[in-house]
């Protein structure tokens, strides 16, 4: 009798051990599985992109099919529209984040705006593109780089709002009290003391927003459209790297495919480097603080 209960508990013990081992193996396999696909994607981009990479990429315009060319106008377009988008999205986002953290931290209205911002953060980007189409492109009657930048700004905005809000909430209250007790008006306290203290976090948020929008394709399709030629006119359709990739990859021409891969490599490298840089910057300034 005694031995049989022992074997029962031993069996139970073994079963628990076995189940645990199974689960651990599963989690290890899942990690390898997940990283495997991502490594495969990066590897493909790297190999195909490097194969197609040359200096002409940065000096020549997007070509018609069958001719040699580069992505110069698309690279410039991406740069210009991303810069414009950040120029719109970052100040608005920082101010909105400041309002949330400094003036509406516990209020109902603040909670509501924070909630809506979280929704906007993950709203489908193509729908935001449609929104900008409806309010800018359709009334104007033509596609424009400015509309593209506005669509990108709408994507950058919630990222900046969120990080700014979070970073300002992390600033200790003693800092606010000390500055206010010197007789500074509150807005100066915010601008001179709180923003400065939260700057690494806010800058990181802006860099991450830039990383996010520089690869966005869907919202540009019917706002900035595309352009085969060089233009710096914000009121005209403008090429961008992601849209050029989309156009070229969907085409049946091999040299267009090669250009698409080169563009994909440039965008991926830029986004990854920006992500690393943003995290490194935040990490470094946190180290300096401690």
């Amino acid at each position, binding site marked *: 009798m005694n031995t049989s209960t022992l074997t029962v508990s031993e069996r139970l013990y073994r079963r628990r051990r076995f189940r645990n081992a199974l689960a651990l193996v599963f989690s290890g396999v899942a990690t390898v599985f997940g990283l495997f696909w991502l490594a495969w994607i990066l590897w493909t981009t790297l190999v195909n992109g490097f194969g197609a990479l040359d200096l002409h990429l940065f000096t020549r315009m997007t070509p018609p099919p069958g001719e040699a060319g580069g992505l110069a106008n698309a690279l410039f377009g991406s740069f210009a529209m991303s810069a414009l988008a950040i120029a719109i999205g970052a100040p608005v986002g920082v101010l909105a984040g400041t309002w949330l953290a400094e*003036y509406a931290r516990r209020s109902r209205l603040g909670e509501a705006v924070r909630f809506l911002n979280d929704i906007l953060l993950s709203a*489908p980007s193509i*729908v935001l593109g449609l929104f900008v189409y409806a309010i800018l492109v359709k009334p104007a009657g033509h596609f424009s780089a400015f509309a593209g930048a506005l669509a990108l700004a709408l994507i950058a905005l919630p990222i900046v709002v969120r990080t700014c809000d979070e970073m300002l909430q992390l600033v200790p209250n003693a800092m606010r009290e000390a500055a206010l007790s010197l007789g500074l008006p509150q807005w100066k306290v915010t601008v001179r003391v709180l923003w400065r203290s939260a700057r690494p976090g806010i800058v990181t948020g802006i860099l991450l927003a830039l990383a996010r929008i520089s690869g966005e394709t869907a919202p540009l399709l019917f706002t900035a459209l595309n352009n085969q030629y060089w233009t710096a006119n914000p009121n005209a359709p403008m090429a961008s790297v992601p849209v050029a990739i989309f156009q070229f990859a969907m085409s049946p021409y091999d040299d267009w495919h090669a250009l698409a891969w080169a563009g994909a490599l440039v965008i991926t490298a830029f986004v990854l480097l920006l992500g690393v840089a943003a995290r490194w910057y935040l990490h470094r300034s946190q180290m300096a603080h401690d």
Partner: protein
Amino acid sequence: MTATLALRKSDRRRDGAVGDRLFRLLAGGCALLVALALLGTALTMAWGGREAFAAFGWKFLVSTEWDAVNHHFGALVPIVGTLVTAFIAMLLAVPVSFGIALFLVEVAPAWLRAPVAAAIELLAGIPSIIYGMWGLFVFAPFMAAKVDPWVDAHLGGLPVVGALFSGPPLGLGMLTAGIVLAIMVIPFVTSVMREVFLTVPSRLKESAYALGATTWEVAWQVVLPYTRQAVVGGVFLGLGRALGETMAVTFVLGNAHELTASLLMPGNSIAATIANEFTEADSELYRSSLIALGLLLFAVTFVVLVAARLMLRRLERKRGGA
């Protein structure tokens, strides 16, 4: 002298008050813009889609017709495509993400955790168009050569679900799109789950370990119950992403407006339809139908995201209260 000084002082104080009020208005106005952007999106979609809804009524939702020549538009094919691909994606992504998050929080040696977590965070930022290109040029041919024939031969003959898995080995289609979406969503869901798991107080876990619980038992009976709602919230965030994803799907779905039972056949999704056809829409009704599709997508993702945020918020509150 003293009077001017006093005046100047009060002046300055008033300046401060005016500055304060201005700054507060400016900041509040910017915050209002955030809310307006979301509201404006919903309203312009509803307004832009009114012609389609007026012309087709409720049939718009259940009709499979998509005829640009005769101006008959129905949303069923893209709706089904969106739901099916997102479902396949979540089916694959949720267990894998759970496994990775578990690995990162409980299993991996300490030196491995930070680098792998950072890598996954970074990979979550890779633009979706890269996933789409890889899907089109690398993964779809692989599916056509290796996976599709196997699926057709081994699963296509099954009694009830066989129809889902039988079809020609095209490479492009619902199954491919679902898998590519899953790969895209995995880093995203993983990093939410990991963050959520990290909020579990270590004294809870340590008590369980002290009672002799295995790692798996701690994960399944302590960590998961404590974070259940937030985990579901994270899954819903991933679902919102999968539903609204455009580029990754557009490349590999095959752009076919046909309703088929088979997952191996090409289909269409709401986002892919809009991306492919919006600039080519040659009539107001056509464009309006596409915007109406956008409204449907927005409504569905809105509901999913609200649910996700509510569930995630509850954990935050719990953490704040503890």
